C-alpha cells in the first residue's frame, strides 16, 4: 500500500501491537449489540454440553469453587483498539472441558451467552491454557457492561470471541458461525493474521 499524503503516524509501533491495532491506553471501550443484561448470580448457570461424555452445569458458587487461574497480558478488539497489560481471574476452560470430556469427534465449540449471543471457536483455541471463564478484572468483580458476572476470555483472538455474559459451551464436530460471524466477521479472528472479516 502506498503512504497517505502527509501522514507520518505517532502511534505505538511496539512489538506487542498486532498489525492495524492501536494502544487504547487506560480506556476500555464497551462495544455491544444489545441491551446490557442484569444477571443474578443466584440463578446463574454455566453449562458444557453437546458432544461430551458428561454434560455439566455449574452454579455461580460451583464454578468459583474450581481451581482458579489468571491471565495477564494483552487484549485486542477488531475495531482496532488493543489494551496492553491487563489481568483477569477465573477458571481455565481446560478445567471445565476436563469435567465434561469432549468426544473424539469434537472439533469446535459454540460459546453461548445468557442474552443469546453466540460465537464459534475451534476446540484447539479454547484448550491448552488459551481460554478462561473470568469474573474478575484487575482484582475487582467484572463489571456488567464488560460481561459481568462472567465472560469468556480468549485473549489470543479478537475480543468478540470472548463472549460477554457467557452461559456455556456447546461442543460440536463442525464449525457453525456465531452472531458476528454471520454478520461479516471472520470465523477464527487471529489478530496477528488480521483475520477481521469473512474472506480474510
Amino acid at each position: 500500500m502506498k503512504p497517505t499524503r502527509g501522514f507520518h503516524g505517532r502511534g505505538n509501533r511496539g512489538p506487542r501491537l498486532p498489525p492495524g491495532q492501536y494502544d487504547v491506553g487506560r480506556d476500555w471501550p464497551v462495544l455491544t449489540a444489545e441491551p446490557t443484561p442484569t444477571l443474578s448470580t443466584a440463578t446463574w448457570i454455566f453449562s458444557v454440553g453437546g458432544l461430551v461424555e458428561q454434560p455439566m452445569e455449574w452454579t455461580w458458587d460451583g464454578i468459583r469453587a474450581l481451581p482458579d487461574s489468571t491471565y495477564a497480558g494483552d487484549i485486542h478488539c477488531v475495531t482496532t483498539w488493543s489494551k496492553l497489560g491487563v489481568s483477569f481471574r477465573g477458571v481455565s476452560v481446560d478445567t471445565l472441558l476436563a469435567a465434561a470430556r469432549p468426544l473424539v469427534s469434537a472439533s469446535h465449540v459454540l460459546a453461548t451467552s445468557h442474552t443469546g449471543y453466540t460465537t464459534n471457536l475451534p476446540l484447539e483455541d479454547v484448550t491448552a491454557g488459551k481460554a478462561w471463564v473470568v469474573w474478575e478484572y484487575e482484582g475487582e468483580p467484572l463489571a456488567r457492561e464488560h460481561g459481568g458476572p462472567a465472560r469468556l476470555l480468549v485473549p489470543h483472538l479478537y475480543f468478540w470471541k470472548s463472549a460477554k455474559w457467557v452461559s456455556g459451551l456447546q461442543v460440536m464436530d463442525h464449525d457453525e458461525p456465531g452472531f458476528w460471524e454471520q454478520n461479516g466477521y471472520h470465523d477464527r479472528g487471529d489478530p496477528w493474521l488480521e483475520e477481521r472479516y469473512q474472506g480474510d
Partner: protein
Amino acid sequence: MTAGILGWKSVIRVTEGRAVPPPGKWQSATVVQIRRETAKAKTFRMELAEASDYLAGQHYVLRLTAPDGYTASRSYSVASAPDGSNEIELTVEHLPEGEVSSFLHDEVIVGDELEVRGPIGGWFVWRGNGPALLLGGGSGVVPLMAMLRLADRIGRPDLARLIVSTRSPEDLYYAAELTRLQAKVLYTRRTPAGWLRPAGRLTTADLPTPIGAETTVFVCGSSGFSDTTTELLLSAGVANENIRVERFGPTQ
C-alpha cells in the same frame, strides 16, 4: 442448554448462514468534498474505486499509511443513504488525542486519496422495510442519519422517526436537514433561545407512544447514552429483541 434470562428472548438469533456478504478488499477513496458540520465534526464525501452496495447503518474502516509502513485504522459509520453511486459520506468527530481523526481534520484536503474497506456490519442496519425509531446521542446520530435519509429517498418518511440528543445547538450535526426531515432534537446542556423543552437528558416523556411491537429501535451513542436509553425503552415496555444498539466507545 442456556438457562436464559426470564422474559428475555434471544435477541441475537439472526438468520441461517451469513446475514451479509463479506466486506470487499481495501480500495482507494478520493475525497471529493469536505463539509463542516460543527466545530468538532466534518463530513468527508469520498468517491470509491469500486461501487459499494452498502446498507444504512453500516460502516467502513479507513486506513492511513505512514512512509515506514505503519498504519492506523478506525471505523466510521456512513452518514449518506445508499444511492447506487460510488460515493459515500463519513462524518468524523475530531478527538483531540485521536491519531486518525486529527489527521482527517487537520491535513486532509479535497483530492486526497485514502484507503477504505467495507461495508461492514449486518446487525445495526435498516433496509427501509419496516418502522424504525432512531435514537442518537451526539455523534451517534451518524448511522441513524443514513437511515433517515434512506427513508426520505425511498419516499417513506413515515417509516423512520429520529430523536437526537445533543449538548447544545453548536454541537448538532446536520441541523438544517434534521429540521427538514422533522427529526426531534433534545438539548442536554443548553437549548436555543425560546426552545420549549428545557435542557436535559432523554426521558420517557420524549419517546413516542405507543412504540409499536413491529418497530425496530436503533440506539447509537456513548456507552452512557446507550445504557440509559435502553433502560428507558425496556421500562416503557419495548421488547429487548426489538432494540439494536451500537455504542461509540471512547476510541480515538
